[in-house]
């Protein structure tokens, strides 16, 4: 009875008790969710265009953030450092295509997945050798102050992150829908062979996709890095993005966004209202369980392409 009360009654009473606090929790959750989406977005882009489940996305976030901080520490002004980092990420994409993907065309998904885990180790090691492995502070001049709207406490930095996320997604959507390259990308995602036969250069497309997701990784790296410092643990947010990914569907950009929001809000609510009942620190697995529950009803994620199986 006690247990039932803790699990099914008390949390809802708490919520009804202070709606302002509940709203705050939801908003914090939404804002964290956007940060998750930023990381998940990089995964989706690469999976859509090349069918590679890129586990190294987390390492790319770390690598990009480290490069940016490293350049800034050497006295490069912020705009130049940003441009420099983008160039580094593009060079990295070219290198990955040239050295790795080109040789692994037509392999099974799991082989490609394992190769990206190898890449993950490589990038983590290389990034930390090049720029050092101590915790770095990333300050790009975003104000980090809290203010109140209708009694709800909001953080300026989180709002800025949300705005950046929105701009990024809109840009990507336009890029995918309206430009020639975007069309080519969608064609490749649809059918490799058909795309090749109408003259779309597969290798160039892969470089572009990996560059774009490198830039997305940079944005995610800036946001996470400015929040919690640039350090090794940054590459572990890939593990946070995975449930977002399966919840939203591997192939859907909107899925990554909505999935991120659901996971962000769900996680915060669960931690605050149900966490004490479980003894706390449930953030590590709650997202996975939530995603699993969703998958039971939609095995391809919320917005994933319907899986049609034929014999």
């Amino acid at each position: 009875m006690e247990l039932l009360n803790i699990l099914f009654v008390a949390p809802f009473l708490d919520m009804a008790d202070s709606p302002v606090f509940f709203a705050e929790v939801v908003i914090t959750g939404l804002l964290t969710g956007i940060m998750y989406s930023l990381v998940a977005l990089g995964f989706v882009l690469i999976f859509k265009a090349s069918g590679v489940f890129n586990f190294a996305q987390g390492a790319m976030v770390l690598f990009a953030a480290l490069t940016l901080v490293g350049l800034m520490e050497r006295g490069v002004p912020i705009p130049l450092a940003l441009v420099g980092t983008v160039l580094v990420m593009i060079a990295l994409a070219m290198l990955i295509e040239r050295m790795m993907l080109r040789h692994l065309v037509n392999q099974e998904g799991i082989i490609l997945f394992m190769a990206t885990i190898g890449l993950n180790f490589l990038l983590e090691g290389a990034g930390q050798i090049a720029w050092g492995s101590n915790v770095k502070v990333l300050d790009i001049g975003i104000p980090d102050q809290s203010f109140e709207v209708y009694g709800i406490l909001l953080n300026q930095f989180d709002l800025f992150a949300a705005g950046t996320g929105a701009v990024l997604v809109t840009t990507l959507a336009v890029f995918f829908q309206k430009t020639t390259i975007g069309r080519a990308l969608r064609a490749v995602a649809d059918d490799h062979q058909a795309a090749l036969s109408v003259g779309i250069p597969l290798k160039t497309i892969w470089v572009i996709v990996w560059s774009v997701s490198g830039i997305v990784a940079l944005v995610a790296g800036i946001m996470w890095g400015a929040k919690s410092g640039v350090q090794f643990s940054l590459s572990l947010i890939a593990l946070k993005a995975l449930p977002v990914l399966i919840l939203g569907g591997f192939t859907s950009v909107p899925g990554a966004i909505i999935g991120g929001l659901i996971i962000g809000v769900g996680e915060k609510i669960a931690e605050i209202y149900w966490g004490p009942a479980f003894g706390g620190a449930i953030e590590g697995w709650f997202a996975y369980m939530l995603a699993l529950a969703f998958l039971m009803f939609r095995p391809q994620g919320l917005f994933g392409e319907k899986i049609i199986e034929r014999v």
Partner: protein
Amino acid sequence: MFYRETGQFKTNYQKDQQVFPIAQDRVFVALLLIVAFGVVPFVANEYWLQAILIPFLIFSLAAVGLNLLTGYAGQVSLGTGAFMAVGAYATYKITTNIPEINIIIVFLLSGGIAALVGILFGLPSLRIKGFYLAVATLAAQFFILWLFNKVGWFYNDNPSGTITAPPRTLFGIMISGPRATAEVRYFVALIFLVGFTIVAKNIVRGRIGRSWMAIRDMDIAAEIIGIEPLKTKLMAFAVSSFYCGVAGALSVFVWLGSAETEAFDIFLSFQILFMIIIGGLGSIMGSIVGAAFITLVPIFLTNAPALFGLPISTDLSKHIEEIVFGGLIVYLLIVEPHGFARLWQIGKEKLRQWPFPY
């Protein structure tokens, strides 16, 4: 010249169906076993046994288990570490509460408990496939470790939060705990590995293994020819988790001596997945070779700078180790995506025609 099956006639079905149909293979395996049982423990020193050979044997067992699930039944799992943790904690719990039970039986019981947990977390595989399933198995990984960390009951409310192997004997010989010698622990791990490998080899070439492979190749088609996906997939999860559970129990009781949940984190799962991919999916021998490779390479890389007399700080050498390890894996996957098992197969073909290829 030497590796040729010419003249080896099979006169009855039993001979035709044996595990190693070629006489040279049988000799090779027999020699390998003789070396493993009769030479290695008397030649190797304490460091070699403790740091290299025992972990290699235990990881091989886990890799064989994962290969049954991923290589034969086609279900990718990233929860290996958690299933190993279940085995380890179950053994600890049983043997500290009921010390009378023989430790070997406790290992097997814990394997059974790990199998039950495996079935539970294998249930989603009926609906979820491919990478969605792989990520879903991460739920098991994080949830189980969190549970073992949070609930004191699992580690007997030990204030340090670790589980420690108590001294246990078998036929009067100390096989676990701080006073057990490395040689004895090596033998325990080796006997477990050999026994379970023989079982695995026979499972995969029998009816069960064939139904796993049918499910792996196309589960809808398999269902149509009368293989029940529910039973087959859950069986694969159960057997695989059993192996992993026993390996986990061994890793605490005959190797590490004491462990926290961190010893079974997600990187262990990745490591074991690496072993079967590098070794070869769907190959028992490949799992063992892969385990040898993944266990040995980091040890070699850690010792390499000192070996060549290079003065490198530990921090830098750790990163270089990461780079080399990652690069090596990518390189191996590019050169031979099907792992050492395929290389071995190609080598055998070459050997058969040597020295006169036509």
